């Protein structure tokens, strides 16, 4: 009986289909373990071997990994939410109510929202750890810079998502936030220097073409803003962030892996 099972198992493992998918056996010796890491698209972010200090949670706090994982969680829950959310003034709010009241697994919204907050915290802590271990120092200066941009993108992701429920909390948080854009020096119509920018009688910067207008797609928050933030939140920023993340991870490897004492 047992031998029969083994026979079947052997047949499966040695079939062409199995072999085409799994390029190695069970990872129970050093060689296959290396193979696993090398041949798996996700795992190959890691080197085959790392310095002991660099993999200890006590050193890294795992915060970078957690941030990346939370990004994936946000992506998955976000995609699912898109099945039930329409970014229009008419439906946005009632779709959120629907998520709360009767959409199956509407709790996805909670996962998404709290995941976003957790991601912000995780990014801060990751940066804090990198700073405290001096890991921004040569040769990792550039990657630190990328990291700073990723931090900003994380905050922007959260900020753009804040508008989507289209409730009072949302639009006034965005109103407070976006009103600052009108005070941008030279680019906002109430910013210092904006009134100096004119050609003849034509004002170059006014409420109809300043930085805030670009952000809100109008002089005030409207349905167009909702759509704009939706696109920023769902496509534009995640797209940019993904590219930068690829660079970030790649540079971690190229700059010598996780930092450690020279």
């Amino acid at each position, binding site marked *: 009986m047992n031998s029969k099972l083994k026979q079947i198992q052997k047949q499966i493992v040695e079939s062409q289909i199995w072999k085409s998918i799994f390029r190695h056996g069970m990872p129970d010796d050093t060689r296959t373990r290396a193979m696993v890491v090398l041949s798996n698209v996700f795992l190959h972010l890691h080197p085959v071997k790392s310095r002991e200090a660099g993999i200890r949670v006590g050193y890294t706090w795992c915060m970078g990994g957690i941030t990346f994982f939370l990004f994936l969680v946000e992506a998955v829950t976000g995609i699912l939410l898109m099945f039930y959310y329409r970014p229009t003034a008419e439906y946005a709010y009632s779709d959120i109510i629907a998520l709360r009241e009767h959409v199956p697994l509407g709790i996805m919204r909670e996962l998404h929202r709290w995941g976003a907050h957790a991601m912000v915290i995780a990014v801060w802590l990751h940066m804090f750890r990198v700073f405290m271990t001096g890991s921004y120092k040569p040769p990792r200066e550039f990657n630190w810079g990328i990291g700073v*941009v990723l931090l900003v993108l994380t905050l922007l992701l959260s900020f753009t998502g804040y508008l989507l429920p289209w409730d009072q909390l949302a639009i006034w948080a965005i109103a407070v936030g976006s009103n600052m854009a009108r005070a941008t020096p030279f680019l906002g119509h109430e910013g210092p220097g904006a009134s100096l920018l004119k050609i003849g009688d034509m004002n170059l910067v006014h409420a109809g073409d300043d930085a805030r207008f670009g952000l809100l797609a109008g002089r005030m928050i409207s349905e167009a803003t909702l759509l704009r933030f939706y696109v920023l939140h769902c496509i534009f920023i995640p797209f940019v962030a993904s590219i930068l993340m690829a660079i970030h991870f790649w540079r971690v490897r190229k700059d010598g892996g996780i930092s450690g004492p020279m």
Partner: protein
Amino acid sequence: MEALRHTINAFATPTTIYLSSVALFAIAMWKMEIVVKPLVMIPVVIVTVLGTIFALTDDHFFKLVTLPDNIPITIMLATVGYFTWYALKKGVENDKRLSENRPLIEQEQDRRVMTWPNLVYIEFICLIAITVFLIFWSIGFQAPLEEPANPTVTPNPAKAPWYFLGLQEMLVYFDPWLAGVVFPGLIVVGLMALPYIDPNPKGNGYYSFKDRRLVIGYYLFGFLIQWVLLIVLGTFMRGPGWSFFGPFQEWDPHKVEALTNINLSELLWVKLLNIGLPKNILLREGVGIVVVLGYLVALPPLLAKTIFKKLYQELSFIRFQIMCFLFLAMLSLPIKMILRWTINLKYIVAIPEFFFNI
């Protein structure tokens, strides 16, 4: 109990909280070796926990803290607090090892090990753990949803998302173009510039404190005091009308605060010289402009000659200028806050004609 709450409410003003936090921060920086000792930290933790439990018995405070959108702040405070202590403790430990010529913690762990299963397995466990955490958080707290967006009714208070509340708090002291645009820009630029203006080769790849005291102090001041503390103030203590409330004080939308601020030019021309504001803008704001330019342009050379002498020698001229500019920009917030609390100063330079107020 009630009396204690009243005392705390009375004590809790932006001035006292901010200044005492700065004082505590300074002490910690000065005597870090002692501060991170468990003997010191355990009582601190106990006091914090007991204090929190006491505070939670208050209805208003309880409601405020358990507001779903404020939960992340609590989590942030706990994690940031813990990790700050943890990192500094390790740093102090490494300092000690260095001074005793022993290998660093990280140097003891320089063996090379297989990624599979060592790293992959802990990562996997970590990820499941964080998922579990997120799931229980979601079960416990419903995401907030208020009334439908209404462009004509502003809720009181209207707050930005919590992670931007530091910036919103800054708006009390600075014009939007500074607090909302320039300072956030400088934070980003400053952070990116950090590797280039920190000349210290020590402390690369391991926790340390003593060798990097200045830059760590600089960073922690920005992070803990100027960012985290302001978020806490902005969330828990700013109520309707952006008025300041003690932690156990009911948020009354009709609270009246004495707020009469004065510009530097008015202070000078009207109050001191008693001759009225001059018509010419440059003349009117001359003193303010001189003060600001002096602060940003004249101060760096002075610093280079005096307290930053050593640093100036390590850095080149341009790097030192950039470093100084960022440093002074960061310091400008506490300076402006103190000026506001002491002499009700509104603007140092006030040219509303061109939306240029500092």
